[in-house]
């Protein structure tokens, strides 16, 4: 009993020296942080920033979005607002559906609606990811942008379509 207690004490004292060695070794190792305003880290893989639009495969200036409004309905805080130009004939076709199956209607439905604006108010976003999960075409993803500081509330209302286009322009240059 006594022997065990003394042995425990000795191992404990030894562990104190080991601890000092650990901090001493880390003291001389290089820093792992960056001096923020002067240095920045590149976008981090797996970082959940605000959502962004995925460019479509054939045209990097265009989004995969089909203006189905699923994300707008899904969003628990209603921070997404989407506007798209739906072809006139589609709405007209719906109105006239009772009348008769006119030959124009199927042709009009084939024409995809064009995304005109995709705005997300990041101040309300809780990063729940429901919009990303439920997008039928996979047009949404989390951006990996770490630096999200701003000076006003307006800085956090992101025009995602404009962002997509400026990124595509940047990439072309």
């Amino acid at each position, binding site marked *: 009993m006594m022997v065990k207690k003394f042995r425990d*004490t000795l191992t404990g004292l030894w562990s*104190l020296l080991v*601890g*000092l060695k*650990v*901090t*001493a070794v*880390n*003291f*001389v*190792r*290089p*820093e*792992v*942080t960056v*001096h923020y305003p002067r240095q920045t880290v590149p976008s981090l893989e797996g970082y959940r920033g605000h959502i962004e639009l995925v460019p479509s495969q054939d045209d990097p200036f265009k989004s995969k979005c089909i203006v189905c409004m699923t994300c707008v309905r899904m969003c628990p805080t209603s921070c997404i607002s989407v506007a798209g130009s739906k072809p006139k004939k589609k709405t007209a076709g719906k109105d006239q559906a009772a009348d008769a199956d006119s030959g124009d209607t199927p042709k009009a439905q084939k024409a995809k609606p064009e995304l005109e604006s995709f705005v997300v108010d990041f101040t309300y976003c809780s990063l729940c990811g429901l919009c990303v999960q439920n997008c039928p075409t996979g047009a949404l993803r989390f951006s990996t942008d770490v630096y999200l500081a701003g000076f006003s509330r307006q800085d956090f209302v992101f025009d995602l379509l404009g962002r997509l286009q400026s990124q595509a322009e940047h990439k072309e240059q």
Partner: protein
Amino acid sequence: MIDAIPAPFIVVSVGLAAVMAFIGANALVLVYLERKIAGFIQRRPGPYEVGPQGILQPVADGLKLVGKQLFTPKGADGVLYWLAPMISIAPTLVCFLVIPFGPRLQIINSNVGLILILAFTGVNVLALCIAGWSSQNKYALLGAARDISQSVAYEIPLLLSVLPIVFITGSLNLFDIASSQGPWPWQWYGAYQPVAFVIFFICALAETNRNPFDLPEAESELTAGFHTEYSGMGFGMFFLAEYAYMVVASCLTAILFLGGFQGPVASGWWWFLAKVYLLLLLIIWIRWTYPRVRFDQLLNICWKWLIPLAVLNLLGTLLVIAL
């Protein structure tokens, strides 16, 4: 005119001014060292923005503290509340007066220098007690209660580990104790009395409320302990006092166990300062290495280990001296 003023008065006045400057300069250097070492151990740069490599950071911190409003919390005892930081810092000035920095660098050569330092550092407990009591804050009161039981416990092994040195030298004069040791490390009392050395150093950590014994101001449990309610220079003076007590403890360790100003090749105040700063670096290194002990552990270390060991060590020393 100058004849009318007694010479000791001039010596003490000039000495006190020098000591205040020394305490202030030390606090600046130590704050910077503390934060830089903490940064490097945690592999970040530490203070970096104010001045080159952040060297002016302590000055900026000090100016901020000086510029803050002096604020007394509602329900606090105003007189005691503002008296406490002053009682905390004042005894340190006296402690430095009797410390022999070099063979010719000592303000007062007192025959009871050791007792004087031990007595005056004990006053700090009173200051912390008053601060905790008068703040009208339960965290402050708990911090003060912890500090008192900690100080009462650790004074005993501290004194018991100083006694062997006193018996060997037969003197309480710090200058005599320092000069009775030789210049080489194996001639220092630390080599004769390793157990007393270790016990004294641990107790010095506990008495100055440094990690891993900083329970009176344990920030994760008691916000800031006894100085929870203090801001501005009220806090600043406690802070200054804590660093000053660290320096006093290191000076005393250097004198008692590491030969004081004696050193190989050329003895002098530079050896003393080098030893003191090595000890201070060790204290800072310990702070950023070990977690805080629990309160029962703190008292167990003292009553179950340090006091019996110190008593045994003292008895052994007495036996050797008697033979």
